[in-house]
């Protein structure tokens, strides 16, 4: 169990369940029952999306939804179309066919100027952090605010708050070159979270990191999901990450500290789903329990690693 200082959660997305089993339908119905129609609109929706580069099919009829407050883990081997999927959400790539909706708005044919507006509500964490080499940690995290012309004292306050969130306030004056791989990813997370985006996209944020650092990154994703009500897509090919994110949740204890607890008899996670891609096609969609029960030879081999 780990603990961190953080603000009080806005809303819990955890639901008690007697046997700890959650089906897709049950999770869907939970969202459908909500009075707030806004919440019933998926944060991200793909409808029959196709994408090819030259003659190579990257995504083949991909359809899925990420509900508000939900984390969708996209699993799959290299070249399966995982990173492409999140680039499509941001409009960094355009699909050949199909529709992409963000917060119910069809962004498929948005031009760059329209996408800029959509991107303001989305945070993206890149594989290697993608920090701007010429800017300090402070300036990297403050980037979005500087672009918006926010007053410097407000910028500093927000930057320090975000760096505290990722436990990196001490690195505020460092340059990206002075940071380790894990620190770069965490600064990338802090930068993506400035402005409080309600959708966060993780593109293999733990690739190449040692297990404790990878665990820290997963904890940040869990905190965003459970304490900040953020909808996210977490692209990974590491089963350890899947284990953490699908079985643990973050709560604030009486001392005001964030603690991570395992789901069990008391609570089970309904806001985390897994989708597995292979050669641009969905070969699995559902909960972690269902994933582990599947008999598909590719999936079982992927899970076991041999």
């Amino acid at each position, binding site marked *: 169990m780990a603990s961190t200082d953080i603000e009080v959660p806005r809303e819990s997305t955890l639901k008690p369940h007697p046997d700890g089993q959650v089906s897709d339908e049950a999770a869907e119905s939970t969202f459908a029952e909500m009075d707030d129609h806004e919440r019933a609109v998926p944060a991200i929706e793909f409808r029959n999306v196709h994408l090819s580069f030259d003659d190579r099919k990257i995504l083949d009829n991909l359809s899925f939804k990420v509900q508000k407050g939900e984390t969708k883990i996209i699993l799959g081997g290299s070249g399966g179309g995982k990173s492409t999927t999140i680039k499509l959400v941001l409009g960094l790539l355009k699909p050949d066919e199909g529709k992409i909706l963000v917060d119910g708005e069809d962004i498929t044919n948005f031009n760059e100027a329209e996408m*800029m507006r959509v991107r303001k509500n989305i945070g993206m964490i890149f594989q290697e952090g993608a920090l701007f080499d010429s800017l300090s940690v402070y300036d990297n995290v403050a980037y979005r605010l500087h672009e918006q012309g926010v007053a410097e004292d407000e910028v500093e306050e927000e930057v320090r708050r975000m760096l505290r969130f990722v436990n990196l306030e001490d690195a505020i004056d460092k340059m990206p070159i002075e940071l380790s791989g894990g620190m770069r990813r965490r600064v990338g997370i802090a930068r993506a979270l400035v402005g409080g985006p309600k959708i966060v996209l993780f593109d293999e944020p733990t690739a190449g990191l040692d297990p404790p650092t990878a665990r820290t990154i997963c904890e940040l994703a869990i905190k965003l999901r459970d304490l900040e009500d953020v909808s996210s897509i977490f692209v990974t090919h590491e089963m350890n990450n899947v284990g953490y994110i699908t079985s643990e949740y973050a709560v604030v204890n009486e001392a005001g500290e964030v603690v991570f607890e395992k789901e069990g008899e008391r609570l089970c996670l309904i806001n985390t789903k897994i989708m597995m891609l292979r050669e641009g096609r969905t070969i699995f969609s559902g909960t972690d329990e269902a994933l582990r029960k599947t008999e598909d030879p590719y999936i079982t081999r992927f899970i076991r690693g041999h």
Partner: protein
Amino acid sequence: MNIATRSLLEIQETTMLAASAVRRLFRRPTYINEMIQQMDVIGVGSLTIILLTGFFTGGVLALQTYPTLKYYGAQDQTGMLVATALVRELGPVLTGLMIAGRVGSAISAELGSMVVSQQIDAMRALGTDPVRKLVAPRLIALVITLPLLTLIADAVGIGGGWVVSTQIYGMSSTAFSSAVWQGLTTNDIFGGFIKTFVFALIIGTISCRQGLQTEGGTVGVGRSTTTAVVASSIVLIVSDFFITKMLQVILDTPM
């Protein structure tokens, strides 16, 4: 795709990038600080090589032409020949080529590295238009600094010619200077400015385009940088021919 189609596509994309950068200049936010920073990097940073290139080009021009002119008894015209050759042709072209080598490669390598390390994607993800933030300031900085650098190269080159003519060939300083003033016209200076303006656009757009379309990791960055310098240099020299011909017609200069 054959080479002709690829070349046409490349010309189209590069032109569209330049047009898009110019369009974005008039929309907020404007990146004045980036522009000033780039002017410092391009202008002040290139000053040493431009001074050296200009001085020795003027010097060698005098070194080569004085004996030939002397053969015809026209050695007093050395200043005129050095000045007109520099202001009309050598100043803009050599400065352009030096800047293509120094600045074009740097722009392409910087943008290419940003592409392969996903910094350009990150910039777009953070709601910033890379054309406005990266391309437009570099283009403007080049358009402003290249004429100024050329002016310096011209002046220093004439100085180099003066040093060679007076110190090596014993020509009088007054004879050299009066030949310079006699030879130069406003049209020569204006024509030189027009050329540097076009060269700046060529270097800026080709280098930015090559940088932004980098693919294939660090090897790709090297490839983009080489292509940027080679393509800028070739297009610059080819365009120089056509601009010169056009200026001869428009400005009615001697043909």
